[in-house]
């Protein structure tokens, strides 16, 4: 895959080849979207962040160092965007908050479900939703480390590159995030 990615990037840099960029988006869209979804906790913001990440990657491709892994660079853009969004997010925009003047109606219920799920998938969907909610309770710095380690399956050194943090700091963030998840998910 690395050879393919290198060729695509060369085409985009040389001739601004948009078809090559579309191929690149296809290759990485799931991973980028997944990070964005796990970080923001909802599909609306996740799509926004993931798209923005690709647009920024296209605009700044000249500054990408071809000797390094493309995914590291792309994931760095993505996590930075998400952490920025989480910082700017005002508490009254939170989907977890109850909508004023309603009882038990949260922001989630105002977002139309994008796809209908078959009956037998509902249970797994509910469990996934619960896990995602618990991930969303983690502070952003622990959340990004845990998502990259356990959902994207990346090595500590790669995560350290993506988050621009020393490896020991990454480990500490993972340990604390793991501990927080244990308290919430471990005794269910």
């Amino acid at each position, binding site marked *: 895959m690395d050879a393919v990615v290198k060729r695509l990037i060369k085409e985009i840099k040389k001739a601004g080849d948009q078809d090559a960029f579309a191929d690149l988006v296809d290759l990485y869209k799931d991973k980028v979207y997944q990070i964005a979804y796990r970080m923001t906790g909802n599909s609306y913001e996740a799509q926004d962040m993931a798209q923005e990440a690709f647009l920024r990657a296209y605009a700044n491709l000249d500054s990408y160092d071809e000797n390094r892994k493309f995914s590291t660079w792309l994931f760095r853009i993505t996590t930075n965007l998400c952490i920025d969004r989480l910082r700017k997010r005002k508490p009254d925009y939170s989907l977890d908050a109850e909508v004023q003047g309603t009882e038990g109606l949260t922001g989630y219920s105002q977002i139309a479900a994008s796809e209908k799920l078959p009956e037998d998938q509902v249970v797994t969907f509910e469990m996934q939703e619960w896990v995602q909610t618990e991930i969303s309770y983690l502070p952003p710095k622990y959340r990004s480390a845990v998502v990259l380690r356990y959902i994207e399956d990346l090595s500590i050194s790669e995560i350290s590159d993506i988050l621009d943090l020393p490896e020991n700091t990454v480990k500490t963030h993972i340990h604390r995030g793991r501990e927080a998840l244990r308290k919430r*998910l471990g005794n269910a």
Partner: protein
Amino acid sequence: MACEQKYEALLNRYLDGETNEQERDDLFLHMETCENCTNHYKELNKALLLVQSSSHIKAPAGFTANVMNQLPAKKKRTSWKKWSKQHPVLVAASLFVILMASSLFSVWNEQAGEEISVSGSQKVEVDQDKGIVIVPEEEVIEGDLTVRNGKVEVEGEITGNLTVINGEQYLASAGEVSGEIEEVDQVLEWIWYHTKRITADVFSLGENAKKSEG
């Protein structure tokens, strides 16, 4: 508990995949007797399994098309910029050519607008209003004659070359030019004329130097 500090660190290293076999055995041997640590491990393991089991989300349909629609239109300027970054020598060279051409052109233009000028001899009649330079009858001009911005009527005699820049020459039946007659009225010809003159000067200088040496 006394065990926690040591074994919690060990447990974290085990989960990070950093323990050797000895340390791993050590940890599990301890957990056989310590309910606290065993529960801690089980809960961590369960939490991580849950997190990992939920990790297969795909980007929504039409994601790529959405991104492509938002891409900025290709800018020609940026591609030129890139090109100029890659070929600095060519850029410098073409800049030099442009500057040279424009300075030559401006010199040419200055001359074209000017009044008649004659060099080589003062024994001619100059009519500024009509723009005519006349070499009168019975007059013999020794050497070359160069006229700019005017018509030349030769009724007398020129022993050298006649050069007319940006004008015309008319040789009367009685007139005579011993050397060559040259009319220059194009920028390129003018440049060529100048180049020729410069090389001729350099050449004759060299010849003069040789002569003086000899």
